[in-house]
């Protein structure tokens, strides 16, 4: 199980990575963790919000569905959807094979705040501890 330390995590098993330099605004890329894809099993559908849609931290913004279950994707931060990974429409299994890379879900532009908006999220060690002690 991988927990790369170049990004932050949520207790909803998502990862968040600042793209380029943090500032205002900041673009963050969002995906689900290796642990999440492993727990779901073979992913067959991914439903994501449209570009330009506003998302609110903690609210469901999409779904990842496997052969056996469906899981909501929650916005880790508030902002506006800047990009979505449409390659997942035809190849949802990429989320299984490369959850931290090509299997990313959306990018969100975070407008407000100074500095790194992901700073308050879990770091890799804290997320790993959460997974291993749950």
């Amino acid at each position, binding site marked *: 199980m991988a927990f790369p330390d170049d990004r932050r995590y949520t207790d909803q098993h998502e990862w968040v990575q600042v793209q380029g330099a943090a500032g205002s605004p900041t673009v963050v890329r969002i995906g689900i963790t290796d642990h999440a894809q492993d727990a779901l*099993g*073979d992913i*067959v*559908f991914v*439903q994501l919000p449209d570009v330009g849609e506003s998302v609110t931290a903690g609210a469901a913004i999409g779904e990842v*569905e*496997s*052969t*056996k279950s*469906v899981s909501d994707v929650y916005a880790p931060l508030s902002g506006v959807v800047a990009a979505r990974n449409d390659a997942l429409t035809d190849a949802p299994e990429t989320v299984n094979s490369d959850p931290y890379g090509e299997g990313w879900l959306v990018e969100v532009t975070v407008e407000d705040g100074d500095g790194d908006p992901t700073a308050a999220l879990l770091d890799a060690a804290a997320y790993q501890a959460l997974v291993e002690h749950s």
Partner: protein
Amino acid sequence: MTARTSPLHDRHVAAGAKLADFGGWSMPIEYAGGGVLSEHTAVRTGVGLFDVSHLGTATVRGPGAAAFVDSCLTNDLGRIGPGQAQYTLCCIPDGEDRAGGVVDDLIVYLHADDDVLLVPNAANAAAVLARLADAAPAGVTVTDRHTEVAVFALQGPRSAEVLAGVGLPGQQLSYMSFAETPGAGGDEVTVCRTGYTGEHGYELLVAADRAGALWDAVLAAGEPEQIRPCGLGSRDTLRTEMGYPLHGHELSADITPNQARSGWAVGWRKPAFWGRAALLAEKEAGPARTLWGLRAPGRGIPRPGMAVLDAAGERIGEVTSGTFSPTLRTGIALALLDRTAGVGDGSEVAVDVRGRPQPVQVVKPPFVESHVR
């Protein structure tokens, strides 16, 4: 309650299987390096090996054992002879609440007039055995062998080659017939041409203490065929593609064989079986709801418990099983639909997928062509 485990449990753990509870048994859902999709595909195109030791096993023995079983369970044992097996149902007897409802669906192996083996579902084995033991005449003994016997399912178009490779009999068996290896005192292996996948296949019954060695031997013999150990996740996608009922979903105390289109497994001309009067009356009147298949071409997979809606958005039934079909690459489901809704093969209806009506087409299963014969 601690989950019971298969005699192969340590092998499953070593193989990196994800385990889940099935009827009180901790069993593999899928294996590391596999996954539901690849395990499913192995069975449709090659061969897969399932541990289904959570299934119950019980013997009914003594003078008139087969006749006694025939007077309780729905199917007509007179249709088969020794060396053949039969799918049948244990229904709630007339006079009881929910008479005609299904206690369990099971396979009966007819060894002889005085020797019958039953393979019920894990969760229902105790209930079936208790009912039979209560009803058994003097001299007929019902014996639970659940933990003594391991059950494997070797399934797929290449299964006969693997069976030959491991030196087991059965390549010549016709559908639903079985053979035993020579042996005594529990050494024998029973091979039956049956399964729950829609593919050519076999189920193997072996003494629990010899199960590990046989499992290893089958996997080794299957290497040239690229055999995969398969978990119960793919067993479910495979059986759903065939429209096979699963007790607790398409059959239950509240869902009769008439409703589930399992009337073919009822010996209607028999003078007696549990639930006969209730089931005949329902058959005569026409069941209030019947089982259909649903094909979901869009995103969002119908799941058990979701409502089926007509064009006006009125509820006309409920999804009993639903999954992604690895063969069709789309959502498929089984659903009980009200007769009054007037739907049939080809009707367009919808499933309420988490608040979003998803268009689906009513079809008659199987979703994928059967290759069992």
